[in-house]
């Protein structure tokens, strides 16, 4: 895991450096900012100095990784004043935002996780909840009209780009057409005046479209995987034996086939969950949700390297944890698998 994580941070750092645009420029030439009324070279130099943007890339990267703070307030070994000798990723310090230096990125990520993770978990739960029965039913009705129609629909859903799905859902369920659901944010603007139950249902209503958007792709992919996995299993000899014993098709599939086909589907958890977290960049931007996806977008547009590095590292860690959990789950489902 560690080498993978290091690789991800190196890659992200390198890619961010390749993107044109200087954060120091954005500090003073923001889209809506007044023109320079005088000499701002000093301010630019100070901003670069404080954020190590005037340092070699290797030094900037090592500062990000830690554990030594290499800024002018950092460790005396590296020419700093010694005020804040330690810092960096190794110590759980993701740095501070360029443009709001009173905000630490870790705190902001943790705050925003409260939006992104429930959203992703809801979408994941719904994806499995819908995909497994659909996949199983398709196998039990293999070759039927239902199976073919479900295949076509699921394939179409899988092909739909997430941003397009989000916009279509907004247009359909928002005021433009049906007017049934809120299209942005997590809560109504007057939610504070609602009862506790009212606030709860209000949040649920706001979550429906983002969760649906996130669910579409994952559900479609999972259901096809479930169908394919189960089809492989029911061609095995022991399934033939079960049928020969005179068991009903329902029992054959659900009792003998299902458990053995679940392994590969569960493994997909490690793929789907990071994809959902990644997809949150689009969903949170379209539905205007304050999660880590929209934070990553903000960081990218503001060229805030630390925000982008922080969100990417965080997502990478989630992915690695998901892979670990999946490996453990695999062993639990299939007793033949043991990790030394």
């Amino acid at each position, binding site marked *: 895991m560690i080498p993978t994580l290091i690789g991800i941070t190196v890659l992200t750092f390198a890619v961010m450096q390749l993107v044109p645009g200087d954060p120091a420029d954005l500090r003073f030439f923001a889209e809506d900012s007044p*023109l320079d009324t*005088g000499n701002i070279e000093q301010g630019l130099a*100070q901003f670069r100095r404080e954020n190590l943007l005037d340092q070699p890339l290797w030094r900037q990267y090592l500062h990000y990784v830690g554990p030594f703070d290499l800024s002018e307030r950092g460790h005396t070994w590296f020419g700093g004043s010694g005020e804040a000798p330690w810092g960096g990723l190794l110590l759980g310090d993701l740095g501070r935002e360029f443009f709001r230096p009173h905000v630490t990125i870790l705190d902001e990520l943790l705050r925003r996780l409260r939006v992104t993770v429930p959203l992703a978990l809801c979408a994941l739960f719904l994806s499995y909840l819908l995909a497994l029965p659909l996949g199983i039913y398709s196998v039990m009705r293999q070759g039927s009209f239902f199976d073919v129609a479900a295949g076509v629909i699921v394939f179409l859903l899988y092909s739909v780009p997430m941003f397009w799905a989000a916009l279509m859902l907004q247009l359909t369920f928002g*005021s433009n057409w049906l*007017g049934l659901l809120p*299209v942005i944010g997590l809560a109504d603007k007057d939610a504070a005046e609602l009862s506790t139950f009212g606030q709860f249902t209000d949040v649920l209503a706001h979550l429906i479209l983002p969760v649906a958007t996130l669910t579409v792709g994952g559900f479609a992919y999972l259901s096809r995987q479930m169908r394919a996995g189960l089809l492989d299993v029911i061609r095995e000899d022991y399934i033939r034996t079960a049928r020969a014993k005179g068991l009903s098709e329902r029992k054959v599939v659900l009792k003998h086939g299902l458990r053995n086909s679940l392994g590969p589907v569960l493994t997909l958890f490690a793929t789907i969950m990071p994809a959902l977290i990644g997809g949150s960049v689009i969903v949170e931007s379209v539905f*205007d949700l304050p999660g880590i996806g929209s934070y990553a977008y903000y960081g990218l*547009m503001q060229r805030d390297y630390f925000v982008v590095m922080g969100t990417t590292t965080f997502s990478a860690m989630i992915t690695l944890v998901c892979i670990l959990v999946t490996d453990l789950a695999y062993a639990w489902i299939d007793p033949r698998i043991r990790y030394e």
Partner: protein
Amino acid sequence: MLKTSTLALIALFLALPATVGDEVEPGPVEKDVFHPDRGKEFEPGRGGSVTVFLPTSVRMLALPLSNSSYARNILHEVHELLVAPDWETWEFKGVLAHRWDTEDSLILKDGGRLFGKVVDEGENWSVTPISPEHPLDAPRMVKKTDAESLERGTVFTFHLRKDVKWHDGHPFDAGDVVLGWEIYNNPEIQCDSFRSSFQKIERVERIDDYTVRFHYSRQYHKALDLFRSLICLPSHLYNLLDPDHADYDPEADERAVARAVNENPHNSNWVGLGPYRITSADPMLYVAERFEDYFDPENAGWVDRIRWRHIRGWETALEALKNGELDFSAWLSTDMYMGAGTSDANFTDDFYKGTYAYGSVNFTPWNTRRSHLSDPRVRRALAHAFDMEAYRDQQCGGLGVISTGTQATFSPAYNRAVLPLEYDQGKAVDLLAEAGWYDRDGDDIVDKDGVPLEIEYLTIAGHKGDREFTELLKKSYRKVGVDLMVTPLDHPTIIQRLKERDFDACSTSWGLPLESNQEQLWHTKNDQPGRGNYSGVRDPRIDAWIEQADREIDPQKRYAIWKEMQRYLYEEVQPYLYRNTVPRRFAMSKKIRGFQAFGISPGYSIRRWFLTD
């Protein structure tokens, strides 16, 4: 001067019968001009909340550090200034200062300096003290031969109200005003965008707890106007050297003091002096609620809560508005404003739309340092080659005013006698030929010294208005043998290209106050890459006009200078291709009344709004 965005769209001044129009003058402003029930009178009452759309996220509210016009919009409701222009009369009036004295400075040949009311008495100047705690206890006569120079309107003494409290209950006093200026003297504090302006003030005296005196080093035409940007800061929360500060440290050095400002959590969670106090601060959403201890009940506002909500994309914001999640958006594109989205019952049942004049100018700066754009005849040819009026008529429904200068078109400093160059492709071809550009190799592109006339035009990627404009521009230029190559880029990349002057042409805009100081745009000292003189104009005549106007405190004489400079720039230099001046197109909930459109940015005052349900 505000750089609003490169997302400059199309103006809508003339078409709507109820439009406020492109002429804005000081005087009473009618309420609810566009409201379908504008004839119905309502008695304003307190209560309710409004949610206002923010087109961009606001990093922080501490204006000296954040330097954002949107932060300034929010501060209008949650903070107050020493003095501010009246929305309607445009005359300055006291806010935190209940009155102020303005005095002149007499610079003596022996290096001394006297201030007071200076009157010409023939061979002498008489200097009469006006403000309290004055170093002169009686009028004094000074021989003109002993005086080096007279600097008019250079000393301001503000008398502060004594009933003002910060939102945390701490009393406001002169120390907070002084801190608002002192931060510019600490080079470690990240307030460089305003630093050079405030360094025109050489000294500030705290006369007593409620009297502050500012001394300008020299005469400056925007001396009083600069106090609109002086943000008083709560010393007890920002100044480590203030005994009331929780981390009071009399030994704190410059860096520690700077850090307490730069990294102060109140930069976002603002503690201000306005009728509304911030209760929730996030770049995406700021919430402010009524501050009951506000000092001026008559201007305390009607609604109880204001939200400023950032939503990405104007289209999404319109959807949110129609869904009832916003009450006001001042950012509708032409398509949105003219289209079905704001004409069907979904919209008109609960909302209405309108326009108001807003100081801005949309333009394409030509990089005059590039050899193929260095000849004014080429730039004039490019203006003649495109039918801007047809563009306005066909693409913008015949709406909009085409500027010819960098003052707001309704500003008294704008020269209306300077008219846009007429569309005449023949003249464009002749001018190009005169400058040595004609088609020598038969490829339909004019060339000179073996180089074809190709112009790279930078636009914001995905911006529909810019895309349509550049498509038409490209077609028009092709007809006179100029190849326009459009390069869509993201905003940070465009900023970098502009800053490095690595561009031929670009779509951009300026937001303009009632009178814009032209120094930032045209003075030679600002022609370095990264400064506001994007086109790289270097002209001693322009520099002289700017320096003359900078000292001219008679508005009429100054306007005459700006007007002459505008004529010269447009007719002789032609550094910009001007597009339509943009009025704001807004959509508003019908339940809000009391909307007035002002010539002063942001063009409206939320504290004048009230709800009818």
